[in-house]
């Protein structure tokens, strides 16, 4: 087990280094002076640009610059956002809470719904119901998530007036306690559903395949031969085995859901990272954009590592086979 974990961490380190280098190179994409990328398009106090120029060694060779950049990052210094008048790192972390508040319930719902759909569809492979689940997942892969959000707003907020169209809390009244929680949940429904749809598609597709695979295994035949009911076999024998690939696909697609959340937030004015991202595009607040890319990329790498560990916990065969090879 330890060898397996070390190997997965060994995989993550060079990837993170590569991401840091990509981020460093992006600074030099700005036409003209790279100081623009580090400061943003802002009237800055006199001397500040010079201070940054020195801090990042912009008059030095590229490799020295890379080194200084990494040293700054290692100290948790992702730059300063003049638009928000605060350092980039706490700014992003503060907004990340709201993005997670949007993503985590959506992911949970998507996982459950996707598995339920697949469990219902797979034993009837080829039936009309099965085909419609396949169709749903195809739609989930193709629909522009921000457009789906707009359509939901038009239908459920504007026409039917069932749900709020924008924001995370009601601004007209100040709520406390459980009423405030309910209010946030109420605002969560539409953006949450928009984030969910892609995930339902991914989970349903993978779960359907893995349920079909598990159904054809010998242990299922054995269980049936023992006289167990089809339903019992499905829940006790097929499901636990089919869940392993589902757990991994959820973790590996963490990056997609972050992207989805960013797009959905702009439609629903949800105050998370996505909203910060679009505001920073408008303000040409480059350090924040780069910080968001860096932190989300690292988050995705972490999600991958955690997924691998989970995989090893769920499936003893993984760590077992690794030990033998290593």
């Amino acid at each position, binding site marked *: 087990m330890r060898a397996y974990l070390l190997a997965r961490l060994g995989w993550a380190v060079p990837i993170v280094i590569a991401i840091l280098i990509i981020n460093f190179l992006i600074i030099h994409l700005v036409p003209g002076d790279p100081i623009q990328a580090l400061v943003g398009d802002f009237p800055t106090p006199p001397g500040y640009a010079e201070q940054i120029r020195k801090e990042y060694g912009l008059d030095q060779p590229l490799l020295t610059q890379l080194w200084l950049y990494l040293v700054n990052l290692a100290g948790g210094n992702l730059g300063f956002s003049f638009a928000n008048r605060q350092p980039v790192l706490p700014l992003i972390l503060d907004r990340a809470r709201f993005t997670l508040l949007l993503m985590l319930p959506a992911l949970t719902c998507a996982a459950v719904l996707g598995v339920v759909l697949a469990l219902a569809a797979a034993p009837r492979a080829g039936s009309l119901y099965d085909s419609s689940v396949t169709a749903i997942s*195809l739609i989930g892969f193709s629909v522009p998530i921000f*457009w789906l959000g707009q359509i939901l707003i038009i239908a459920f907020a504007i026409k039917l007036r069932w749900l709020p169209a924008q924001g995370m809390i009601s601004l007209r009244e100040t709520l406390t306690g459980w009423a405030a929680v309910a209010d946030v949940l109420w605002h969560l429904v539409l953006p949450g559903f928009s984030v969910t749809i892609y995930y339902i598609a991914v989970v349903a597709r993978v779960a359907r395949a893995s349920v079909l695979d598990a159904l054809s295994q010998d242990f299922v035949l054995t269980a049936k031969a023992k006289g167990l009911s089809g339903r019992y076999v499905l829940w006790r024998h097929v499901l636990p085995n089919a869940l392993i690939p589902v757990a991994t696909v959820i973790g590996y697609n963490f990056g997609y859901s972050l992207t989805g959340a960013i797009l959905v937030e702009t439609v629903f004015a949800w105050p998370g990272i996505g909203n910060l991202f679009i505001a920073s595009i408008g303000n040409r607040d480059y350090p924040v954009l780069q910080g968001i890319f860096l932190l989300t990329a690292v988050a995705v790498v972490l999600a991958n590592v955690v997924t691998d560990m989970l995989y090893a916990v769920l499936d003893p065969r993984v760590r077992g086979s690794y030990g033998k090879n290593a």
Partner: protein
Amino acid sequence: MRRFLDRFLAYRAGMTAGLYVLFLIAVAIAAALWPGIDPHEISDRAMVAPSMAHLLGTDELGRDVLLGLIYGVRVSLTVGFSAALAATVIGVLIGAAAGFYGGWLDLVVMRISEVFQVVPGFIMAAVIIALSGPGLSRVVMVIALLAWPQIARLMRGEVMRVKQLEFVDAVRCLGVREWVILGTEVIPNSLAPVLAGATLIVAQAILLEASLSFLGLSSADIISWGRMLNSGQRFLFNAPWLSIFPGFAIFITVLAFNLLGDAVGSALNPKTQR
């Protein structure tokens, strides 16, 4: 019978998708050739709901939505096809070299492609475009940069399979040089799975371009579907048609390329062949 029906259905979905793509290409060409129509033309008939005069309504500047959609086809298809083509050329060359020669080259290529698999591509594309400025050619380059590893992986796997086949050894016995074998024998025989992959990249590219334009990361004077959704967002309450139709166009087009890619994939896969 059921199996036949399934095949027929899959075939029909792929066929319909293919016909739709041909239709889009025809629309794009017709829009380019038709003289005297300007989709940018501003009129005093602003925010008119869909009617006989304006089938899909007009926007806040009185521009016809249907006309915008027709001219937007060109942007989506241009970006989709050029990005897929660029990604495919890069991916085929790199993937083939990695699969054929193996060794450290293979190792390096696979590690690099892993980085691109993990990195949240859309965010990276948005940051690059935000910093370097909008422009269709930049968008195409960024998408190609993000998508080539998919093709490279497919190509590498197929090349590793094909290079072990007997006919390759036969050619080698004739004294043909290694890189000539790769170029004239191995690569042409490994292209089938790449074709399906490239079609799926067209779908991803169209969706990505639309997402970037939706965030405002495209030049304001080029009409594109994503851009139309970007301005529609402000008028969801009084002019929902500004959002409904362009988004539907993106959805159907992406769906068509996804279906087409799946159909191409299963048609070329010997395991599912009739």
